């Protein structure tokens, strides 16, 4: 939180820091929209804030974010140097120290049909980064080949916002550190983090724990990044988020040819879902993946499927929420994983 308060101008800083601790622990997003009420998202539930920092549902009494607030936030975020964030503003997001991510919208300026910059920032979404160590505990025994101390080629399938990236991050962390409980020795992991979501890098240094033997290529296009990592960092495991394009698949094949284990995530709710997308259908036909981990709505672990015979190895109880989303110290259970998605 400290890192987030630092980039808020005085008035907003005061309001947010007056939130009760119980709410701060649930804080997932702070939304600043110029000339509109100040909003926060407390784990899938949004609320307006008054000038005194109390949570209300009626927007009429909420604090209205001013244009000045927006400008000052940008100044604080950029260290009074907007030009230093050109690249980030082009991509519409930036990462703060601590791995928190800020999404931005405003007036887009084009150059030859492509986004050149965003000026007149009209809306900011500050997303609090949270990490849930242990998320992968239930999954790991099924995706590790004990005899050889290697990871199976694993694909994590999940609809949006179901904890895909959070799970990936924790698998990466544990595989990289080694898992004494399973007798697994840590291996070198290469991560291509195109949207800075897995490791939340700030100035190239991961702000979230991704393990001791993990090399992160931050903000790099997946396909190019995978090839680069294979050539330069000799990873044992290559981890990428949200594959789906043909070029990603080709890069994955390159990794396989180099004898590297692949850990990837993908949008989708079932394997049949993937068959409908040409690039992924091709990938499945290759029979590369040995394990499919399927997540379901509400952060449940639906099933783990063996890639060879398509038979389920493990089935999660449907509609029972797993207890892998536990924020910090207050022991509050939440139904949803809230990492930096």
């Amino acid at each position, binding site marked *: 939180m400290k890192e987030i308060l630092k980039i808020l101008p005085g008035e907003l800083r005061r309001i947010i820091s007056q939130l009760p601790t119980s709410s701060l622990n649930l804080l997932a997003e702070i939304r600043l929209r110029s000339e509109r009420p100040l909003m926060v998202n407390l784990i899938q539930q949004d609320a307006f804030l008054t000038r005194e920092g109390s949570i209300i549902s009626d927007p009429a009494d909420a604090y209205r974010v001013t244009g000045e607030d927006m400008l000052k936030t940008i*100044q604080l975020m950029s260290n*009074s*140097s907007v*030009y230093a964030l050109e690249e980030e503003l082009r991509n519409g997001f930036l990462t703060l120290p601590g791995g928190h991510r800020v999404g931005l919208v405003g007036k887009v300026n084009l150059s030859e049909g492509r986004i050149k910059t965003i000026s007149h920032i009209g809306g900011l979404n500050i997303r609090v980064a949270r990490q849930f160590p242990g998320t992968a505990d239930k999954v790991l025994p099924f995706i590790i080949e004990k005899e050889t101390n290697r990871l199976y080629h694993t694909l994590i399938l999940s609809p949006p916002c179901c904890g895909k990236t959070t799970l990936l991050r924790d698998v990466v962390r544990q595989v990289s550190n080694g898992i004494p409980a399973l007798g697994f020795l840590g291996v070198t992991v290469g991560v291509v983090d195109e949207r800075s979501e897995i490791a939340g890098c700030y100035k190239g240094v991961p702000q979230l724990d991704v393990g001791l033997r993990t090399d992160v290529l931050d903000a790099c296009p997946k396909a190019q990044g995978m090839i680069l990592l294979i050539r330069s960092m000799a990873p044992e495991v290559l981890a990428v988020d949200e594959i789906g394009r043909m070029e990603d698949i080709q890069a994955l094949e390159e990794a396989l040819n180099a004898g590297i284990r692949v850990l990837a995530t993908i949008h989708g709710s079932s394997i049949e879902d993937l068959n409908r997308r040409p690039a992924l259908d091709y990938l499945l036909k290759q029979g590369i993946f040995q394990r499919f981990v399927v997540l379901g709505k509400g952060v449940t672990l639906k099933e783990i499927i063996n890639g060879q015979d398509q038979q389920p190895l493990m089935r999660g109880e449907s509609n029972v929420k797993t207890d892998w989303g536990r924020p910090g110290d207050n022991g509050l259970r939440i139904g949803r994983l809230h990492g930096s998605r």
Partner: protein
Amino acid sequence: MVAANYDRRPKQLRAFIGALQALETEITYAATPLPEAWERVGRQTPQPVGAIFNNARAALTGGLSAAEAWQKGLEDAYQETALTRQDLEVLLELGHCLGVSYRDDQVKHLQLTKENLRQLEMAAQEEAARQVKVWRYFGVLGGLVVALLLY
């Protein structure tokens, strides 16, 4: 003393032009954030101009906006420099633009300011040449008067 001031002003203007050039390089090629860029420029610029950058940096990290910090740096040091009010105005003007826009735009503002400073510097040099001559002439003349009086 006065003659020395006329001599110092073009020198200091030149130092500013060089400093802004260095700042432009930091911004365009390295996208160095202002606090760090000012510190680097401050270190490589002769005094008293270098100190202005250092003081501005201190004010900026102390919580002032870039424009306010720049103004503070300039105004605090103004008395010790040989700069005129006009020079100061040109430099203050730049403060409103520093850090608030993209690289292309930053470069435009820096170049405009450098161009303005160059004009001032040329004028200052001519002025200095003339004034120094006048004052030296007075000096010599004064000496003569003293010499004559002694006789």
